[in-house]
């Protein structure tokens, strides 16, 4: 894997500024796919900006639906009682993806 700089910005504005300043810089959100691509050489950025902690990991009721934060893990979403009762196809699709340990 090609070496790269790693940053954990304190807020969204700083994150955007960091990525905008370096050509080819990428955001890292949890990272299951990006880390695979880094290892395989599919992408080789000079800078990785980790925004995992900046995203919401909450699932909240919203206007008759659900608002799902970008950092909600697949397993937690599939296990959410509201998803299982109101959106079972979503839960089934999440559970069919990979195995539990890799699902994120």
């Amino acid at each position, binding site marked *: 894997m090609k070496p790269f700089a790693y940053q954990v910005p304190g807020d969204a504005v700083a994150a955007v500024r960091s990525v905008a300043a370096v050509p080819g810089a990428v955001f890292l959100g949890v990272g299951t796919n990006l880390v695979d691509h880094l290892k395989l050489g599919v992408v080789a950025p000079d800078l990785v900006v980790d925004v995992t902690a900046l995203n919401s990991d909450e699932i909240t009721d919203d206007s008759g639906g659900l608002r799902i934060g970008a950092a909600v893990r697949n*397993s937690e979403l*599939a*296990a959410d009682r509201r998803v*299982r009762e109101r959106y*079972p196809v979503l839960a089934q699709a999440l*559970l069919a993806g990979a195995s*539990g340990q*890799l699902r994120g």
Partner: protein
Amino acid sequence: MAQSFVDHDAFQCGYCTPGQVCSAVGMLDELARGWPSAVGTDVAADPQLDEAEIGERMSGNLCRCGAYANIVPAVLGRVSTHRQAGPARAQATHGARP
């Protein structure tokens, strides 16, 4: 759990065994919290532990020796011992020898 693997001869070379034991403990914890799996046809129902559920929930751990035939009974055996021992004793056993 480790003792149950020994009791059920749930390994051959032993290479994958630490991961199998850790996965089994973690999987049972998820099951106790009512997390569904891809096995159940009704995701809203509380999952019940059986051989199919163990196979699905342990599916990330491969055993090149093919000891699955004994790994599944080892996990079921651990659950059965846990229930017979009762919550208080099972908790103590769990802490001393997960």
